């Protein structure tokens, strides 16, 4: 018997009588009067910034005004004119000098302000981690109340890689002092469209 067979045999021998899988329908999950407002409050509480915007032209204006000139700004959103486009055959290591990355978020969860983003909208998986600052564009209608509703949306979805991102990268490993910008972005700005 190889290790696989030995482990599976030992597990089979020692596992207890079958216990039923509980239904998630019974969970009386929290909902908010205003999911959009809750999302904003929670994200700001964990170090992120939310900007209400009418369309994506405001994103370009913001990036141009807010960050230092001469730095590399990139995006995976095809409709954002005037900003370097990143596609899926980009060498991940060459993104090292990216100052600002702008990507689309699929949906957000109000209870924890996490935004779901998959490989297809990132093009290169490392992008939202390697940039110094992350900007996410989100449709305001795509905010669900809680994680259960979030997973209902992606229950049957086929993604190669997906990530919930909630705020800038952070650590409190040194005496529990919160520092934004551990290995990933030092800031996260969300443009919330109507």
């Amino acid at each position: 018997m190889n290790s696989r067979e030995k482990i599976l045999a030992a597990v089979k021998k020692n596992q207890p009588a079958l216990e039923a899988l509980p239904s998630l329908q019974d969970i009386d999950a929290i909902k908010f009067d205003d999911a959009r407002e809750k999302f904003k409050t929670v994200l700001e509480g964990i170090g992120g910034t939310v900007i209400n915007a009418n369309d994506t032209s405001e994103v370009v204006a913001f990036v141009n005004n807010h960050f230092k000139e001469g730095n590399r700004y990139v995006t995976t959103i095809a409709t954002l004119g005037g900003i370097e486009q990143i596609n899926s055959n980009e060498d991940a290591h060459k993104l090292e000098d990216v100052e600002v990355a702008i990507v689309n978020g699929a949906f957000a969860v109000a209870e924890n302000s996490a935004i779901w983003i998959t490989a297809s909208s990132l093009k290169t998986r490392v992008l939202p981690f390697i940039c110094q600052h992350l900007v996410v564009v989100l449709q305001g209608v795509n905010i669900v109340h809680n994680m259960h509703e979030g997973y209902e949306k992606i229950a049957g979805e086929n993604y190669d890689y997906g990530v919930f991102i909630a705020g800038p990268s952070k650590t409190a490993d040194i005496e529990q002092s919160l520092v934004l910008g551990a290995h990933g972005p030092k800031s996260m700005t969300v443009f919330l469209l109507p």
Partner: protein
Amino acid sequence: MTQMDTMNETTHTHAELSEQFNVDEARVNWHDETLWWVRQKRDKAAWTLPEWEQLRETASRIKLNTLSDLNAYLKEFEKNAQKNGIIIHWALDGQEHNAIVHGILQKHGVTQIVKSKSMLTEECHLNHYLAEKGIEVIDTDLGERIVQLAGESPSHIVLPCIHKKKEEIGDLFHEHLGTPVGNADPQFLTNAARLHLREKFLTRRVAITGVNFAIAETGEFVVCTNEGNADMGAHLADVHIACMGIEKIIPQRKHLGVFLRLLARSATGQPITTYSSHFVKPQPGQEMHIVLVDNERSTQLGREDFRSSLKCIRCGACMNTCPVYRRSGGHSYHTAIAGPIGAILAPNLDMKENADLPFASTLCGSCSNVCPVKIDIHTQLYKWRQVITREGYSPASKTTAMKAMATTLSKPALYRSAGKMGRWVIKNMPWLVNNKLNPWYKQREMPAPPKMSFGEWYKKNRKQG
């Protein structure tokens, strides 16, 4: 203390190591207060959800279902992960796990790697094994990198260097990373580590990560970090190796909703970790491996009283709340996983070596009350004491005292005279108990003796009534 000391030193018990930790009382108070603050953040986060108890109960039942059908779930996970293009390995024990990882590195001719947090690789002593083979492992979680530079092991599963003061970290960084002497500013030191580790992420071709949850239904696995180090390592490497214990399986993707709502709130009081990354398929051109490790988990599964310890999702809440952990420090547990949960997992790995750990508890039950998957931790600590004593491994001093106690309690006349004697001794010869030979007197003042025993009081008052 070096990493090897904490792992292999057999002569130091929890009590002895705690004594070392307790030399500096101000520091112990600081450690205690810091962890209690984290515990309070957990409470606040839990109270924001009216359905918190429902979530705990559901999470517990999902895990119980998983454990009761683990054989089938493991096979389902393997099949789906393979379909996604992931290479699956099975390791009976830590040694085989380490050899598998080393084999992958050899195949790719790699001698330098990055690793994000994985308590499993700590349990298997992977770093030490690879070091002996000439492989350099850089731990990329900031706290883990700090203890690695100090030659120590993590003292907490979520907060690896919670025992360290920022001045010590400043000194370490000055020595190893060349930061200015005396600079102990957390912001500055974190940035120095960011620059130091970014170079490693960009140049290492193999990255190891742990696994928080593995989904049988889809073959994907989820890794949670705040720093983004797991993703930086994995996405910039040619080869991603994810190491997991076989108990990390959950049945379906939608169950992540339950566990991700509980994990970070229980751990640090955050609503969720910054990153919850779902790895399904390798990136184009990348190789992805999963090492499934048993290392006695299947044995624990067969122990009826202790199997539910395998429900653990490694949040660390039981450590933050534990009055013994907070005042004895993680290294006093001399195992990869410290605290109450470590003390019920470790005897399964080596009952003799870890016989002292289930006794390192007041059985107050706070651990069980905060556990997000409702493991009855304090009950299991109590049950391990009985198993350990029955098997003849209980600490010698406790055995002698317990035998004397058993004799006294089983003979009513002896009990009454012993009680009288005790009260007389505390009153008239306090130095007999208030001395260094009596371990109960350490850090304690003996109370004033009562004038009479409850038995005597009851007799007297009953007559009066």
